[in-house]
């Protein structure tokens, strides 16, 4: 028996296959969630079945917003439980997980590998991946370029909490001729301050692990560490934390 985790988020869909002992990641798959979760789930199913294991040998757990669209899953769990479990696997069992997702941000307190408390952002996209995606788009940049530019900029304050208002704030800044580098730096700063405010609503353990799609955005990770006053660790597998956790719970 091998264990698969399917994590269909608002922006990216992730699949992971773990070995029988649940100690090793055998395969990973990352794809855009697209507009149809069911179809995305189907594609991940085809991928899973192409890995050389029969369906009877696979135990599949689904998580993420699209978890309800995975009819072949043996079980579904919320992404909070899965991210907690996945982060414990990647970073150890006593830490505070920060997951910056495409549509929401969560802070999960882990004690001995178990979720003991959590908080999610309010139903608004400030402080989420969506915020940076919208800002990058507005400036005609891909996310990688956006982060590279932000790193060389001087932070301008973007005070609007709402993504839509922040976008018009950026339009005004562009109108004033503010360099894109400074605006990008300001947008990252805005997300970091919103995320750290969420972290401070809980009793953080002082050790942070970042999961989600920004696990390789070094500039954001460093900025977050500066504001929190502690090191934020992560790894390229951070984006698979939800899927890993799902597979572990299979």
């Amino acid at each position, binding site marked *: 028996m091998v264990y698969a985790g399917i994590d269909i988020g608002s922006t990216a869909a992730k699949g992971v296959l773990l070995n029988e002992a649940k100690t090793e990641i055998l395969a990973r798959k990352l794809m855009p969630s697209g507009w149809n979760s069911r179809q995305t789930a189907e594609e991940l199913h085809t991928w899973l079945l192409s890995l050389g294991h029969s369906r009877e040998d696979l135990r599949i757990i689904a998580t993420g*917003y699209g978890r309800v669209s995975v009819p072949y899953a043996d079980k579904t*769990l*919320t*992404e*909070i*439980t899965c991210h907690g479990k996945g982060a414990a696997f990647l970073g150890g069992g006593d830490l505070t997980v920060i997951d910056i997702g495409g549509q*929401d941000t969560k802070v999960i307190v882990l004690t001995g590998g*178990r*979720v*003991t*408390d*959590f*908080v*999610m952002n*309010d*139903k608004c996209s400030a402080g989420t991946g969506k915020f940076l995606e919208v800002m990058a788009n507005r400036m005609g940049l891909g996310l990688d370029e956006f982060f590279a530019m932000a790193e060389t900029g001087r932070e301008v304050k973007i005070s609007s909490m709402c993504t839509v208002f922040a976008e018009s704030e950026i339009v005004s800044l562009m109108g004033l001729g503010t360099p894109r580098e400074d605006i990008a730096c300001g947008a990252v700063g805005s997300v970091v301050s919103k995320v750290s405010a969420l972290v401070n609503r809980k*009793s953080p353990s002082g050790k942070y692990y970042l999961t989600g799609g920004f696990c390789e955005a070094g500039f954001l990770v460093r900025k977050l560490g500066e504001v929190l006053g502690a090191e934020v660790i992560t790894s390229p597998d951070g984006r698979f934390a939800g899927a890993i956790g799902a597979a572990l719970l299979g």
Partner: protein
Amino acid sequence: MADYHEMWQSLGMDVKTHDLLCEALPGAFGDVYLSQDNRPEGMDYFNMVVAEIHGLRPAELVEHKKKGGKVVGTFCIHVPDEIPISAGAIATGLCSGSQFWVPGGEKKLPAATCPLIKASLGARFDRTCPFFRLADMFVGETTCDGKKKAWEILAEDAPMYIMDIPQMKRPKDYKHWEEEIHGYLKKCEELTGNRVTPANLRSAIILLNNKRKALQRLASFRKLDDIPISGKDVLLITQIAFYDDPARITSQIHKLCDELDTRAKNHVSVFPKGTKRILLTGTPLSIPNWKLHHIIETLGGAVVCEEMCTGIRYYEKCVDESGGTIDEMITNLTERYMGAIHCACFTPNRERIDDIKRLAEEYHADGVIDVNLKFCGIYDIEGHFVERELNAAGIPVLGIETDYTDQDAEQLKTRIGAFLEMLGN
């Protein structure tokens, strides 16, 4: 529902718009309630009352008014129903738990107002709730900023009477509320033309205490390991208790409880073994707001207690029945209606936190969900203490904010689902 169009027409309602509500309700009720397995038979009465929600009881109120009787509508459990009842009026809660009425309220109120207030004004101004047509007097109170300003707007269309609820619980505040209740009694006497006698007031106190005792008996079943009735069903009964005939609902609750006694003896539970038990605390859930109970119980939890106005605060404490004179009885009413209800409109409000902890223990709750209706500042801010104190007591707590729409159902399912998973590991 039977055909009540003629009555609605005569009440000056916007029947066409109201029909939309009537069309939506059976489906919603069916999905949430009738889909439950193993419901007690005693729920039949309450199903019927909901099915006829804008017909049966309003028709009784119409009859009462035909005989010269008056109807007094209230919005808050700090306002004692014993007073209008002792003056021969019928007291009714004013419904405000549906998104259906919110857009109507938003015509007059800022969007950033709590849905309960918006729905209350919408129900009146849009003429889509018979209770809001039938009340001869609307009793508002100064519990929160939103309400007290909204009453000024409502007063342009409805006969308002405002009671000034204190914000603290010092001796002089009790004295003030006592005076307010005296004033309310006088006002109800003027409205009905009936003089309140000690005998009338005493029997009103006993009548409503009996209703409370029935609701207490019902709540006691939720303390059992095998819970014989769902949280949803108890919520429904509590909501109906706000506007049904008090004596009738008392006897119907006891009838249901007799059935639950048998279930308890046989260890019948409507939940599987090991179901996580949730205590809800926070802002009220007015009929037909069943959203949270439905989500929690569909996700495999059980709601065992509501530390809410539509819950424990409404029925847990009785009024002292020993008063002989009207003055003594009003002192006792003050004690009950101010001292025994711990709303976030008071400062400080330490007793509420103590209540949550006590109730979590009494009802063996595995976790607490602190619910805040969007834009209710006082409960939102008090959430700070709820979370901190429960954490200190080792009781898991989840804070959520919601309104009357269904748009956030998926997000709520993720939060509540994760909370239940957390309790289970």
